[in-house]
């Protein structure tokens, strides 16, 4: 390289320099001329070089000014510079001094340029440039170069082939191959030189190359620049002014209102009068976003306002863009202030006037009052006479208006349990039957809450239903009219308005009519007073009475009595136990004996059958019912005890002997219908069963036959308890029990047997002691389970009660069939013949939760190795915690070894704790998530994974999902601004369904500063149990938008939101 340098310095480059100096400064420096001789040689060498890549060629391109020669020429440069400048530029002073000695005439302009920081017009100079280093580009540097030198066409060349660009060559080949360079157009005849454009000129003009940067566009789009600090001119107007707003308009309302016209609102401001602090009805605001967008939206808004002239709070909206100086706003403020002042003045004047008027009016009033009083008296008298003249047609005493379901039929008679009479006290009341709103599930408090708009006096709950007692018939009617058939949780409140017999109309209706105006106030005071009353009563009860009684009843007050009682208890206690046992033993021994007898004497039931037919012999048998109701008093007491212990409301305790009390006439009708139907069915059953001759069947048949008799008998006597009353003096009076002479005639007329063989049927069969005996014999065959017989009376009562309920439900069903909505009717007559279709949630709610209750466990997946899991169950539940601890320890170990906790571990912290879960179809909704192994309470189960998006995005997406038909919501809100969307990208945790009494809960925890949703178990969860958590949706007030809950949990709220 050193050789090259020297060579070129001496040769080519030196020569080049020489020629340059020569052209400008002829004969100036001999030193350079010495080198001139070498130049031609060098250029020749350069021209002849067959340039091999990277050797001579590159060298020729090397920098040519070696340090030594540069230094040598250094002094001459500076001296030459001044001598050369006049050639090129007319004004020498500006160039030489670089703006340091500018002429005075330019001073002002110069100053101006300095301020704006641009090139001076006069001097063509930018003084700021002097602050920067002088570049090679500067004319001072370029002008010292020779303007021109002789052209050597031999230096012209064109690379014809460069192996570097050849795609077919490998790297090796590229290096080995050499370039092909053409010098000075070798081989081209100068005549061949022609304008390449001319050969296809038409194409040249007509088909501009679309790829070209220089495409001749005749039209161009206009730019839309964003306003920022670099923009010239005023900022786009974005502030909008709204004026003449009514004082009622709130900031939130207004901003929401304008939001509907575009983007969100920014800097919403209401302007108040600085003196009075009163709203001037002026507001200013901006649209969000960059100024251009805000202006665009603002202009659009103003235009739409012009066209539509919308109203805000009933006043036409007045809106305009504020100018940049806020002139408009100021103007509007001034006018508003003036108005306000005028208003205030006016008000003051009016005040004075009013005071004057008041004085005058007071005088007048006094006179008027006297007159009014007289008039009122007259009116009251008139009203009284009117009331007497027109007896109300609808509201007769001792009548019931049935619910809307039964077209508000008016029925005579009132259904009311006797013991409630003392609470109702002949006041009108509304009766909600238990079958519509079950008293077991709904407390009277709920009813109270629903009807808190009405002035009821009491809400009583009874096994038969709710009784809402009113003081006034009017209020009662109002409640009935408005609330009958209202939806209430999953039930409908069907009301019956009942007016008891003793209801008297003279509950001064006049006061009610007059009080209509003050209804609201009265209602409010009523409610308040009621509340006060309850609280007062509660306080008295809890704070005064309760402690007093407790003190009074303290054991220390009655030492003697306590001792006595204790001794008594000790004596009494063992007795009943013994007697009971004895009774039982006796009964069993009798049964045992009979059984043995049967075994001996009766090989088949056919013989018993014969015996049964001979009823005469069974005279002295006491019907089973008697045996059950042996000690009536005792039973009553028992029932009462039960009742009080069971009933939630302490207000009323009820007796349960429903059969003896008045039932609603409707019900009786139903009952009759029921019997008729039953008979038909049993006949059919008999026909079917007639062939059957197995022994067990025979027994049933016999029973059925017996029952038939009973029912027939009933039809005659229309009294369910008939047999009992007859039994009381059966021995002497009743002819039926007299022996007959004309062959075997049944003592009781034969009745068709009931299809259902239950206690009642049995009781009906057993007419007398003889029957009982035989029954005992027969029943001995069947093994008696001990559970049922523990408390026979209770069991018997329960059986009866359940039957009653079943009957009612059956009645209900009959009614329901008529009400089937049209969409549940199959057009073709059979749903099976119709294509698949979706069932609405609204329809599902009617059956799904109930079915869920029946199939109690929430399992749908079954594994064959269920048994194995059960064994491991306990271990698994405990070990998961242990595992976590182990993991933690493991992490800690690694931390100790590596120094800092590794990324992988911390990332996997959540996934490691994840429990094995799977998804499958769910009874609650579409898909559900199921535990694959038992999970202990408080264990983490799974993370809710999805896309983390902003609230706005979530709204947008929700909209989109609804549009595209993705009905299920997989959006989970973390906080105000963040939502996890698992719809398109997300883990299986999204399948977890809502349940009102959930097994899991979702917690938002922070993992490394990021909020994440993790599902934890609330209680121990069994394997294959469905996982649920409470979605905690916000309460939806619009009934249409509410989502039905199908979870079927005992405490189901009925809705998700």
């Amino acid at each position, binding site marked *: 390289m050193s050789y090259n340098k020297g060579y070129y310095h001496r040769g080519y480059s030196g020569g080049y320099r020489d020629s340059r100096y020569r052209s400008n400064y002829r004969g100036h420096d001999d030193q350079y001329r010495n080198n001139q001789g070498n130049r031609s040689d060098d250029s020749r060498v350069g021209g002849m070089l067959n340039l091999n890549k990277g050797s001579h060629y*590159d060298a020729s*391109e090397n*920098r040519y000014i070696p340090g030594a020669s540069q230094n040598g020429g250094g002094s001459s440069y500076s001296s030459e510079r001044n001598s050369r400048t006049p050639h090129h*530029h007319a004004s020498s002073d500006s160039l030489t001094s670089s703006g340091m000695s500018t002429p005075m*005439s330019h001073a*002002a*302009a110069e100053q101006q340029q300095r301020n704006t*920081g*641009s*090139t001076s*017009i*006069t001097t*063509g*100079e*930018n003084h*700021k*440039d002097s602050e920067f*280093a002088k*570049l*090679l*580009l500067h*004319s001072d*540097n*370029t002008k010292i*170069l020779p*303007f*021109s*030198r*002789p*052209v050597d*066409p031999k*230096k012209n*060349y*064109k*690379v014809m082939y*460069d192996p570097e*660009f050849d795609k077919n060559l490998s790297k090796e080949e590229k290096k080995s191959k050499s370039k092909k360079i053409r010098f000075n157009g070798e081989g081209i005849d100068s005549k061949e*030189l*022609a*304008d*390449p454009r*001319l050969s296809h000129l038409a194409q040249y003009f007509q088909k*501009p*190359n679309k*790829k*070209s*940067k*220089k495409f*001749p566009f*005749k039209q*161009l*789009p*206009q*730019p839309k*620049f*964003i306003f*920022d600090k*670099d*923009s*010239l001119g005023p900022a786009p107007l974005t502030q909008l002014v709204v004026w003449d707003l009514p004082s009622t308009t709130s900031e939130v309302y207004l901003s929401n209102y304008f939001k509907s016209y575009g983007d969100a609102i920014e800097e919403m401001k209401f302007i108040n009068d600085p003196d009075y602090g009163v709203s001037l009805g002026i507001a200013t605001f901006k649209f969000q976003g960059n100024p251009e967008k805000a202006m665009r939206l603002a202009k659009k808004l103003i235009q739409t306002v012009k066209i539509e002239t919308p109203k805000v709070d009933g006043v036409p909206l007045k809106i305009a863009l504020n100018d940049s100086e806020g002139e408009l706003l100021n103007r509007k403020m001034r006018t508003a202030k003036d108005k306000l002042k005028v208003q205030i003045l006016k008000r003051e004047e009016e005040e004075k006037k009013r005071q004057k008027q008041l004085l005058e009016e007071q005088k007048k009033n006094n006179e008027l009052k006297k007159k009014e009083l007289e008039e009122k008296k007259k009116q009251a008298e008139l009203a009284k006479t009117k009331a007497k003249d027109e007896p109300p047609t609808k509201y007769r005493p001792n009548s019931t208006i049935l619910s809307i379901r039964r077209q508000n039929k008016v029925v005579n008679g009132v259904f009311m349990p006797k013991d409630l009479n003392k609470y109702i006290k002949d006041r009108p009341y509304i009766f909600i039957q238990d079958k519509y709103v079950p008293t077991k599930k709904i407390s009277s408090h709920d009813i109270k809450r629903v009807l808190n708009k009405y002035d009821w006096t009491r809400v009583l709950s009874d096994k038969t239903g709710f009784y809402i007692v009113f003081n006034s018939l009017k209020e009662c009617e109002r409640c009935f009219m408005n609330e009958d058939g209202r939806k209430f949780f999953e039930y409908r409140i069907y009301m019956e308005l009942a007016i008891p017999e003793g209801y008297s109309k003279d509950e001064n209706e006049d006061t009610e009519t007059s009080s209509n105006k003050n209804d609201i106030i009265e209602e409010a005071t009523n409610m308040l007073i009621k509340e006060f009353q309850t609280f007062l009563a509660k306080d008295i009860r809890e704070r005064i009475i309760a402690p007093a009684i407790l003190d009074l009843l303290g054991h220390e007050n009655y030492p003697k009595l306590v001792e006595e009682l204790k001794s008594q208890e000790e004596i009494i206690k063992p007795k009943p136990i013994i007697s009971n046992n004895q009774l039982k033993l006796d009964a069993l021994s009798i049964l045992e004996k009979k059984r043995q007898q049967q075994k001996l004497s009766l090989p088949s039931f056919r013989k018993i059958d014969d015996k049964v037919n001979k009823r005469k012999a069974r005279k002295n048998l006491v019907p089973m019912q008697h045996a059950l109701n042996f000690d009536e008093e005792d039973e009553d007491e028992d029932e009462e005890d039960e009742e009080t212990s069971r009933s939630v409301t302490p207000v009323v305790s009820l007796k349960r002997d429903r059969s003896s009390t008045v039932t609603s006439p409707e019900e009786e009708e139903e009952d009759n219908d029921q019997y008729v139907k039953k008979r038909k069915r049993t006949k059919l059953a008999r026909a079917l069963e007639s062939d059957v001759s197995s022994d067990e069947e025979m027994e049933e048949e016999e029973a059925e036959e017996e029952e038939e008799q009973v029912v027939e008998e009933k039809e005659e006597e229309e009294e369910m308890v008939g047999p009992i009353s007859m039994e009381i003096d059966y021995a002497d009076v009743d002819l039926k029990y007299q022996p007959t002479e004309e062959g075997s005639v049944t003592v009781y007329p034969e009745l068709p047997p009931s299809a259902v063989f239950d206690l009642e049927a049995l009781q009906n069969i057993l007419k007398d002691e003889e029957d009982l005996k035989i029954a005992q014999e027969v029943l001995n065959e069947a093994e008696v389970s001990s559970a049922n017989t523990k408390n026979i009376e209770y069991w018997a009562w329960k059986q009866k009660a359940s039957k009653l309920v079943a009957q009612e439900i059956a009645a209900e069903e009959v009614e329901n069939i008529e009400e089937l909505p049209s969409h549940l009717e199959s057009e073709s007559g059979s749903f099976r013949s119709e294509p698949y279709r979706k069932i609405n949630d609204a329809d599902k709610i009617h059956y799904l939760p109930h079915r869920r209750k029946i199939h109690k466990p929430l399992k749908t997946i079954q594994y064959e190795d269920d048994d194995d899991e059960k064994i491991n169950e306990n271990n698994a539940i405990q070990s998961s915690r242990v595992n976590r601890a182990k993991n933690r320890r493991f992490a800690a170990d690694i931390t100790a070894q590596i120094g800092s906790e590794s990324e992988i571990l911390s990332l996997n912290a959540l996934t490691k704790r994840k429990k094995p879960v799977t998804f499958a179809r769910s009874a609650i909704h579409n898909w559900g998530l199921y535990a694959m192994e038992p999970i202990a309470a408080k264990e983490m189960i799974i993370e809710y994974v999805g896309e983390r998006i902003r609230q706005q995005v979530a709204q947008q997406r929700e909209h989109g999902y609804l549009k595209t038909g993705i009905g299920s919501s997989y959006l989970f809100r973390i906080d105000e601004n963040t939502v996890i969307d698992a719809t398109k990208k997300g883990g299986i945790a999204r399948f977890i369904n809502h349940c009102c009494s959930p097994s899991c809960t979702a917690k938002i925890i922070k993992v490394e500063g990021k909020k994440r949703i993790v599902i934890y178990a609330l209680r121990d969860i069994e394997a294959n149990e469905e996982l649920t958590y409470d979605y905690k949706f916000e309460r939806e007030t619009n009934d249409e938008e509410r989502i039905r809950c199908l979870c079927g949990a005992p405490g189901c709220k009925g809705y998700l939101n």
Partner: protein
Amino acid sequence: MSQITITAKPSSSTTQITEKLLASCRPTKLFDYHQGASITSLDFDDSGQYLISAGIDKSIQLYDCHKGIHYKDIQSQKYGCHSARFTHLDLNCLYASTPNNPQENDNAIRYLALSNNQYIRYFKGHKEQVSSIEVNPIHNTFLSSSFDGTVKHWDLKSSSSIGNIDIGQNSIIGFDPHGIIFAIGKYPDENSTIGSIGLYDLKTFDKGPFLQVSIPVSKGQIWNKLEFSNNGKLLLISTESSEHYILDAFSGKVLARIQLDKQSPSHNHTQPKNWMSFKYPYTGSCTFSPCGKFVLIGSPYSIVHIFDLNDLKTSRDHNSDLEPIILTKSSNIQSTHGIPKIVAFNPKLFTFATADTTVTLWSPTSK
């Protein structure tokens, strides 16, 4: 490393380029990012979205013309920068080094990726300051002229030149819109009144120009820009004087002389002595509109003149030897910030840029 993405054009409807609309243009954006230093070049990219300016503060500034915002500041403190030009590839630009220490004599052309601020290639070969760089409007090649008296042809893939023409003096260069020929202009020296234009075929430029015409001009006039109109019919010579020339792109005949001093306002004390000669060179105060029907020329009176060329008859239409027309009448628009010494029209958007020490973006105010 910020990723620079090329976004779609604003989807507004296009408007016809008319004199009226051009005259309605007003400075709407002023970018002052060169610390008051003189700017020596302006260039738009192919998409018309980006604009770069190179200044003697040794920085390249990148602007987004769709939004009208300053986008990026690229420093080249080591080498200096001049004649920054976009290539067709991504946001890569070529610029000529111009170091402040003449001893360094670094005359390489640098190829910089603006998106990540990394140099792709250095093009070495010129022995003196490179005065201008022109990129082939279609192909990935470019020409450079230098004070060493040569014009070199380069391929972006190779750091050594693929062609060389010895001109003997500093020159100006320009590609035709199809990228098949180029023109080299030699301006006269201080004693001469004859400049010349040579038209070269890209295939045979080493043999010499297929057309060489001489242009009679004023003495010692310096040319700084040679531009073909986008319709390929005209050739514009931008000078540092008050006179500019419109040539027929085929015959090289001067069709029009544009004279600005004739109609300049008569300011007494602000009469410029050298019209538009500055200490630092610049890449021309004239430009064609993309349609080729108008010429925009900056004057030292802070005026942008708009000349209508619709009436100009090319020599192909009239084969007679007409004397060149002298154009003096123009629509004028006032620049509010500095002298519009560099004027460049956006190839895809109705906006043009002028630069002095600051870059001004102009946009039409009427629709």
